[in-house]
């Protein structure tokens, strides 16, 4: 495991940059556990202070210290992404492995459902859910709904790998040794698709955090729960750019772009790592 990491850092500049970016973001988000102020309170500092030695990221028009505000916001956004990614990974693994290995009508039925989910434009659907649930829409409900829409692409990917594994010698051995379907999928096939699960995990996080930001900026989530999206929502509703409180918008945008770039670079380099041909080319072999 450590050797893999060392190789990745040494031969893959994208992985190194991604790792640095994500580390900065994660450390910053973890700082929120030591926050001296409650981020949900408003008007506890002087409003509209530009970044300074006392307030590193300035304060906003609601009298909040942006440093701690953003730290909590990032933590919430990241954990939201992780929840969606974990749930949707479970769904896509189940669907992908089952439909690849079992085949037949199970495969056809699952892929039929899959095609329906691929074709549905997610944003109008999420807005629809918000419209229906309104204030009952907390971030966990939203995460559940998004997870239900975030699996089809990856399920297809996993299925294609599982299709190949099905005809490999070791699968046949396992069947003859008397292993049941569940056992074969969990113990024999799952390790093969784990790299895909990891790289799609990051992509899924990107996707869900991006959608959450979008919904939050429009005010379609719980706006009192600090996330990167709701920070931007409040900034917009106070016309921060027009008033000249630029740090209220520019700093969260920089942070979110850093998060996205970091996660994306990790996903890309991991993808490349899975494909041995491109790995060899990079190492100059």
């Amino acid at each position: 495991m450590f050797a893999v990491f060392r190789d990745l850092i040494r031969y893959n500049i994208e992985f190194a940059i991604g790792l640095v970016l994500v580390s900065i973001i994660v450390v910053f988000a973890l700082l929120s556990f030591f926050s001296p102020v409650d981020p949900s309170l408003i008007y506890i500092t002087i409003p509209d202070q530009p970044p300074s030695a006392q307030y590193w990221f300035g304060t906003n028009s609601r009298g909040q210290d942006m440093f701690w505000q953003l730290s909590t916001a990032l933590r919430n956004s990241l954990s939201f992404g992780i929840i969606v990614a974990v749930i949707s990974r479970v769904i896509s693994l189940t669907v992908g492995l089952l439909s690849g290995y079992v085949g037949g009508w199970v495969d056809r039925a699952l892929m039929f459902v899959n095609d329906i989910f691929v074709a549905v434009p997610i944003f109008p659907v999420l807005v629809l859910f918000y419209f229906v649930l309104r204030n009952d829409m907390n971030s966990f409900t939203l995460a559940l709904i998004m997870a239900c829409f975030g699996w089809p692409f990856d399920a297809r990917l996993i299925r294609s790998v599982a299709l190949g594994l099905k005809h490999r010698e070791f699968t046949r051995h396992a069947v003859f040794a008397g292993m049941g379907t569940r056992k074969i999928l969990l113990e024999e096939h799952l390790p093969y698709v784990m790299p895909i699960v990891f790289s799609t995990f990051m992509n899924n996080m990107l996707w869900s955090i991006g959608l959450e930001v979008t919904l939050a900026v429009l005010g379609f989530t719980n706006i009192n729960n600090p996330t990167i999206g709701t920070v931007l929502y409040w900034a917009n509703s106070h016309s921060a750019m027009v008033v000249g409180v630029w740090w209220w918008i520019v700093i969260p945008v920089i942070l979110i772009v850093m998060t996205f770039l970091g996660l994306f670079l990790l996903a890309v380099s991991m993808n490349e790592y899975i494909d041995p041909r491109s790995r060899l080319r990079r190492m100059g072999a």
Partner: protein
Amino acid sequence: MNSYLWFVGKRTLQLLAVIFFGVSATFLVTHLSPISPVEAVLGRMTARSNSAPEAIIAMRAALTELYGVDEPILNQYFNFWLRLFRGDLGPSLLAFPTPAMVLVGRAMPWTVGLLTLATLITFVVGNFLGGLAGYYQNNRLLKAFGIVAIGIQPVPYYIVAFILLIIFGFLWPVLPISGGFAMNVIPGWNWPFISSILQHAILPAASLVLVGFGGWFLGMRALVSNVVTEDYVTYAELAGVEHSTIVNGYVIRNALVPQLTALAMALGGVFSGTVITEQVFNYPGLGSLLIDAVNAGDSTLVLAVSTVSVTAVALAIFIVDLLHPLLDPRVRAE
């Protein structure tokens, strides 16, 4: 040709199923919710006035009849389909009494236009440059494109649009940042109107292109760098076929087939992106309509926009899928 017809038949069946399930799900979500549209509207209408209790009861009765919510859910469901086929989902609240479908019809051309324009530019330019980058792997400029693509591609539509809005709205205000055309031009086939439309489309289209470009570029580059290791490419090079002919005629064309499948799969996401971008730039399309409808608590209009979106995206994917075998000579030959 027979196999193509078989394919079309199968695909049509799938299209109908997608539309059926999508529209049914939309209906179910809006109707199984604990929030009644009647009470929501009533709450909005009586919030800022002192209505007599009798008036409220009368309003509630009228609204219940208007929405037909007193009937059993199955009846409502059948009525919904009947009305959908007639293209009439009832009056909207946002612009009462304009039918919701008329509002959707007005917004539709803007979204379709923006989406088509942005997708065409992104797909063509991204794939062409990506193909070149995969073939000429040592070209500095194309490498730079790759870095830019990696830098912008993961950023969500909203943030890119927002950054463009800040740059062109506050720092360097040269382009219009809001609306579909300027207020002072007369809509029609005249040059000021058309140029105004084009000017207003630049920023929304640019943000869609910026985000979309990277995906096609990186995908095509990866595909082409696999294709160039094939024997037939080496053979063509040894035989002295010109590089440009190899790239355009043999390499990109072959790599384009999986990209077209990818286009069909990406359309749903691109549609969502368009809807989001429209909202940022206040573009008069389906996205802005949807947000306005939600803010106004207009369930008819929300249902109409969602239904039309699901159907339109399914149709677009269907069309792209039908084109696919025609571009792949292996399928044609059967």
